[in-house]
């Protein structure tokens, strides 16, 4: 897959990307978008990290769907992250399918798509690629790195791996490790994909019959975890879909069924099934505290000068407040300046993408204070 615009760069041509798995990958193409203009001193650069099925089109208009970018609500001219002032970078993660190297890319050795010969990747591998992208863009240090859900996991790995390259970090609805329940839901999704005969051990690219059924079921399951019981009840209850009575069959009698089927079928048009396997695996492998003898605080010792902001949502049962608070307590114990709020909302995990005033006020205040305290030219003052 190649990007159809200029915002794509091929990295790791000479020295390969050394992955956590021990494998090496070369080269790595990164598809990315930028918004705004990089200041001369580089002090206005903000990196946005996208979630599992997100992409680099955080703002503006998505070239494929024609819809607004996934976080265009807060990124744009005059918005919370003001692209008249800030230079925003968002890249498609390693393993994904929107132009960055992933299982649907061509394996240079065979000349065929990688499929499941693509090496298993981790969240940390994703941010290593982001760091190399920033090098290529001549961005040494970020005013802020932020993301929600899997985007928040990337922010956490930025804190563990490149703390000196970030002035501030915002983590929304996220976790520092996947729990058994998180892994369980992902496994259901992966098994759905792999149970689809069209999956064919990941070799479906030539056939033009991708495992849409399996991927669609995976998406339906995952989508339930992004909402909440209250949200589903409020939105659908037991309402029937364009009928007055149940049909005593297996059509989508209920609105909630119809809704999920729609979510599944539109998802397969924009996402690659193998990418779904790889990225969910990367999330399952995330266990930052285990790399530090079970003490998450030790992961953040070198990040103690990075200003942090963590936000959770009351109805998020995918990455609930307790997991977000683990991060907060660890940052606190490491001595990092951290702010935290649990925001009351009925919308579940997806809340971080929605218009919620308390979240906006918090982020706005956090960004403003990050700017006030940031002097990109002062190398001694920060992160030493």
């Amino acid at each position: 897959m190649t990007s159809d615009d200029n915002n794509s760069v091929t990295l790791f041509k000479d020295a390969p990307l050394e992955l956590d798995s021990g494998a090496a990958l070369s080269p790595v193409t990164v598809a990315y978008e930028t918004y705004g203009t990089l200041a001369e001193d580089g002090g206005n650069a903000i990196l946005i990290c996208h979630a599992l099925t997100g992409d680099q089109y955080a703002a503006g208009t998505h070239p494929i769907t024609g819809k607004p970018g996934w976080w265009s609500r807060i990124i744009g001219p005059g918005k919370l992250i003001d692209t008249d002032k800030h230079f925003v970078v968002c890249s498609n993660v390693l393993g994904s399918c929107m132009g960055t190297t992933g299982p649907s890319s061509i394996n240079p050795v065979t000349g065929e798509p990688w499929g499941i010969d693509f090496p298993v990747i981790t969240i940390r591998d994703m941010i290593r690629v982001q760091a190399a992208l920033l090098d290529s863009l001549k961005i040494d240090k970020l005013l802020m790195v932020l993301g929600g859900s899997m985007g928040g996991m990337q922010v956490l790995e930025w804190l563990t791996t490149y703390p000196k390259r970030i002035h501030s970090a915002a983590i929304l609805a996220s976790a520092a490790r996947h729990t058994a329940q998180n892994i369980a839901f992902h496994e259901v999704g992966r098994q759905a994909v792999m149970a689809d005969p069209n999956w064919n051990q990941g070799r479906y690219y030539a056939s033009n019959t991708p495992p849409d059924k399996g991927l669609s079921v995976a998406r339906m399951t995952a989508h339930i975890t992004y909402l909440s019981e209250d949200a589903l009840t409020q939105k659908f209850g037991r309402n029937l879909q364009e009928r007055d009575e149940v049909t005593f069959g297996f059509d989508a009698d209920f609105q909630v069924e119809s809704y999920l089927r729609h979510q599944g079928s539109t998802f397969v048009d924009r996402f690659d099934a193998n990418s779904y396997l790889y990225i969910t695996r990367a999330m399952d492998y995330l266990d930052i505290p285990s790399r530090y003898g079970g003490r998450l605080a030790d992961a953040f010792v070198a990040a103690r000068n990075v200003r942090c902001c963590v936000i959770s949502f009351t109805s998020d049962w995918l990455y609930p407040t307790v997991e977000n608070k683990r991060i907060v307590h660890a940052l606190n114990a490491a001595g990092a300046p951290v702010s935290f709020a649990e925001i009351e909302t009925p919308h579940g995990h997806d809340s971080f993408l929605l218009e919620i005033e308390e979240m906006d006020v918090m982020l706005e205040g956090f960004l403003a204070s990050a700017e006030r305290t940031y002097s990109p030219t002062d190398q001694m003052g920060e992160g030493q």
Partner: protein
Amino acid sequence: MTNATAIRPDLQLIADLVEPGARVLDIGCADGELLDFLVNTKNVDGRGIEISQTGVNQCVAKGLSVIQGDADNDLAEYPDQSFDTVILSRTLQAVHQPKTVLLELLRIGKKAIVTIPNFGQWHVRLSLFGRGRMPVTKSLRRTWYNTENIHFCTILDLHDLIVEENIELLQFVPHQKDGKRLNMGLKRANWFADQALFLLDSGHQV
């Protein structure tokens, strides 16, 4: 940076006891008035805990590092002696476990500054004695059924607990709501002070 020059007089009494450059945790920091003042005038490394979303947002807007939480649930996670000074201002009477919280303050802080509204003050006593109803005063404005203050105590009550737990009392500053200091001992202060400040030492060597 905001440049706070004047703060509420009772908060000023607390601020006077904080060393410049100290690591400070303000529990129940509300809109961050005291913390902001300490950061800007005493260059402290300040952290806050605040229960209300509005308060947290106001603090974050000031550039303060504040987590949403409360004294009953969030102190256990802080490492021993991780702060020079821990402040609990007019909050002890609102926690579920005042004794546990008091001991936690001195576990995580080298020193603790605790202020309480004084339930032994004569207005309060008179009100309960004369009217036979739970007092509603300047310092204690809510009625019994909607007050967040669930563990009222008097100056002598808190002093008893401090003695009982072998905590070293470094300073006792009885004062009025307007911050005016009262130059009197425990017993007299228990009759006349709206509030009192206790500066406590954890006993850990620095």
